[in-house]
């Protein structure tokens, strides 16, 4: 029963909003801080005297001076010029697992019990936080089958780096680190796996996919040797294909004395269905800001949970939360720990949100989330395969997991419009661009949607219809696709300055220095 899907007539607001640093006037204030009373000043002295002399500024900071109404308006304008998670259908952003971050958890994250604490506080005064860390740890041990989790890594890359450091520590403790200098990974695993293994000092051995799209098992066997420190692999990979021989992979690496780590960025299709422990893995990580609903990106921050088997827990970064009766402690007394991978013990607001989310879902809810994600993805997949120009690489018959790697290769061949062109045109329909692929692009003109459990059937149908429309345009009027976007905030940014060391700037000060204060006219 085919319903007619009406595509929205979208146009992004254009505010030509300046940068905040260019706004306001000297003396303008949003908040008038009350002066201390005479008596207090007489007792304590001036406010500056509370700040150590060597930390006192010589000049006032060059912060914008602006009132509340103008400031509010400014940030609202900026938000309106973006396509964000809350305002559009983000299911195109595969591997990021763009699920709904429940707003109710924001009231938790913003409560004073969260915002008014400090990581250097005595642990006796943050028992609630430590309890939450411990209990989230327990949830994740249940989900993964492993034994101990920590939350110090701020994201997936830092988690895989933590793992590489743990591989190092483990083999060093057995006097085999010099001999074991290789880490095996696959070309479809997230690039942080080879990158962090390399950064930790290992030689990286990459495996290509076979014709079915599974990592080449024969190549793995040929790569396992006494030089193997371990395996770092994402499963399912970014193609959405679950490696059915994963246990054999793990066994092969164990067989030569290596450890096995599973990058679980793509865990959303497996909760309550498969556990890494049963496949034999020794360690894994989860992205709390993906699978477990903590917000992404600048509304983040991110947080990755890194977990290991009992025998490896002694190498975990410190501190680890331990329980003693009804008291929680931050355990720093771990002589074989790899040390710290980051300051303090984790982005706790993310831990808090993940904990709250799991509680609200329950075990049945997690299972349902995974089942719905896989169902949604395959439902979308069937629709996409009817769109002219779309090609699916590797396995054509079996279902994929919660995401699928497609290709616009045929569209490019027939019309000259490729993945990047489609991306730019999607914005004209008020839909976020689809994720293409991590590098290297083994699949040409790639795109990887991931309609997780937050998206309704209508959302999925709409997304597919947008792509169908763009395909139609490419075949009949390719110019409109090639010159997109037409209804976005800006047409196409000139990204050349971002590659030029003489022009790029991470701070306003650097920007002024390099541009001579000429404003943003060049972008």
């Amino acid at each position, binding site marked *: 029963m085919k319903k007619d899907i009406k595509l929205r007539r979208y146009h992004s607001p254009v505010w030509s909003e300046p940068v905040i640093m260019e706004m306001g006037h000297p003396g303008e204030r949003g908040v008038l801080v009350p002066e201390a009373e005479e008596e207090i000043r007489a007792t304590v002295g001036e406010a500056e005297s509370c700040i150590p002399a060597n930390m006192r500024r010589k000049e006032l900071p060059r912060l914008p001076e602006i009132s509340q109404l103008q400031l509010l308006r400014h940030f609202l304008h900026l938000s309106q010029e973006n396509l964000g998670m809350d305002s559009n259908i983000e299911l195109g952003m595969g591997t990021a697992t763009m699920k709904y971050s429940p707003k109710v958890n924001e009231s938790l994250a913003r409560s004073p019990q969260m915002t008014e604490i400090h990581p250097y506080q005595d642990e006796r005064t943050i028992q609630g936080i430590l309890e939450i860390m411990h209990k989230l740890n327990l949830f994740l041990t249940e989900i993964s089958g492993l034994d101990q989790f920590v939350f110090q890594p701020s994201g997936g890359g830092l988690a895989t780096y933590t793992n590489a450091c743990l591989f190092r520590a483990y083999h060093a403790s057995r006097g085999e680190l010099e001999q074991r200098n290789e880490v095996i990974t696959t070309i479809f695993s997230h690039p942080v796996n080879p990158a962090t293994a390399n950064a930790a000092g290992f030689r990286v051995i990459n495996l290509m996919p076979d014709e079915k799209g599974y990592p080449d098992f024969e190549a*793995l066997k040929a790569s396992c040797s006494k030089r193997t420190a371990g395996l770092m692999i994402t499963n399912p990979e970014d193609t959405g294909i679950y490696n059915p021989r994963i246990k054999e992979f793990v066994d092969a690496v164990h067989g030569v004395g290596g450890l096995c780590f599973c990058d679980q960025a793509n865990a959303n299709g497996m909760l309550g269905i498969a556990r890494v422990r049963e496949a034999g893995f020794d360690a894994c990580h989860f992205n709390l800001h993906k699978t477990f609903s903590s917000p992404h990106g600048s509304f983040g921050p991110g947080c990755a949970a890194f977990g290991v088997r009992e025998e490896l827990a002694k190498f975990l970064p410190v501190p680890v939360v331990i329980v003693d009766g009804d008291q929680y402690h931050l355990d720093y007394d771990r002589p074989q720990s790899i040390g710290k991978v980051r300051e303090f013990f984790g982005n706790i607001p993310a831990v808090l949100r993940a904990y709250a989310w799991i509680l609200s879902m329950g075990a049945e809810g997690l299972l349902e989330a995974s089942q719905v994600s896989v169902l949604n993805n395959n439902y979308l997949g069937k629709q996409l395969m009817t769109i002219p120009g779309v090609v699916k690489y590797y396995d054509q018959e079996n279902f994929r997991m919660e995401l699928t790697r497609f290709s616009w290769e045929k569209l490019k*061949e027939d019309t000259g419009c490729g993945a990047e062109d489609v991306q730019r045109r999607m914005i004209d329909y008020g839909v976020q661009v689809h994720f293409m692929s991590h590098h290297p692009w083994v699949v040409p003109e790639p795109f990887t949607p991931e309609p997780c459990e937050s998206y309704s059937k209508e959302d999925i149908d709409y997304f597919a219809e947008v792509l169908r429309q763009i395909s139609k345009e490419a075949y009949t009027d390719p*110019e409109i696709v090639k010159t997109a976007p037409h209804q976005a905030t800006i047409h196409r940014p000139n990204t050349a300055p971002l590659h030029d060391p003489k022009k790029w700037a991470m701070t306003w000060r650097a920007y002024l220095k390099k541009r001579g204060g000429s404003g943003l006219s060049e972008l």
Partner: protein
Amino acid sequence: MTQRKLGLIVNPVAGIGGRVGFKGSDGQEILDRALEMGAIPESPKRTIEALKKIVSLKSRIEIITYPFEMGEDEVRACNLIPTVIGSIRKGATTARDTQNAARDMLMSKVDLLLFAGGDGTARDIFDVIVDKIPALGIPAGVKIHSAVFAINPQYAGMMAAEYLEKGPGSVRLCESEVMDTDEQAFREGKLESKLYGYLKVPCERGMIQDVKMGSVAGEEASMDAMAQDIIDNMEDDVLYIIGPGTTTRAIMNKLNLEKTLLGVDAIHNRQLAGRDLNEAQLLRLIEGKKARIIMGVIGKQGYVFGRGNQQISPKVIKQIGRENIIILATMNKILSLNGRPLLVDTGDAEVDSMLCGYVQVITGYEERIVLKVTA
């Protein structure tokens, strides 16, 4: 979009030998025989297929080409208006005309030189332009062993359009092999390919830099990293035989040694031990010494041994041993294989068989990729 200049050269006789079973069309005699037998030239048709993909840019590009069958006819057949330069004898063009055309286009400062033909045409064009301007081949010959050709005419057109649209500097150029096949030997059933040179060709796949996707190490950076890896792991008193190509050249560059781009050199204790060596010289050098071979990979085809490096003969390989062979390739080159394995064809079945199996190919500093080698 700024106005861009596309140079177009069509070799009107390329591919003419194919259908009638001649393996190429070098030489007037062969050409006459082919035409007598009713052969129909392939390149005009292929050129038109390619040009169809550029038609949408017509207001923004100037197509500079040679008269009649060397490009003008094909451009007009697509309802485009060419800028015609040079002069030819209609119906009687030779390699000399291809070279004249290439020279004229070089002087006209075209942004991209698109040519239709085979390995021979690529060779003629390379002789003139070397690496001075980017070029791209529309495959229209019988001998297509060079990596400078797109996989089909449509792709050639699309790649040219993309390059012209995005502009020089926005699309990366890859040094791609021009192979020279001995046609006479080919007819006698022997395939003897020689590495002739490198043209700068727009990179095909998604290794294009885009700030949204994060940066990818460029070819030069990759090769530099691979070279550093090799040098850091170089042992004293071991003779290193360095195969031909741009990837292996990076090693010599890092050691401040000059590389014979199309030939085989040798290094010992980081000093040059031999230049442009033949089989006999190689065998003498490795006599009684511990030796290793460092090889690159021919793009698109994936040949490691057997194309353009016959000096490294089966005898040399056997003496050095499989475990002492080091292979380098950039990710770009590996992706150009499209999932196909690496190939060897030394001429000796026993040696070929010894080389087959899985190998670790160096792709960066302390980075390897596992690929299959078949014969």
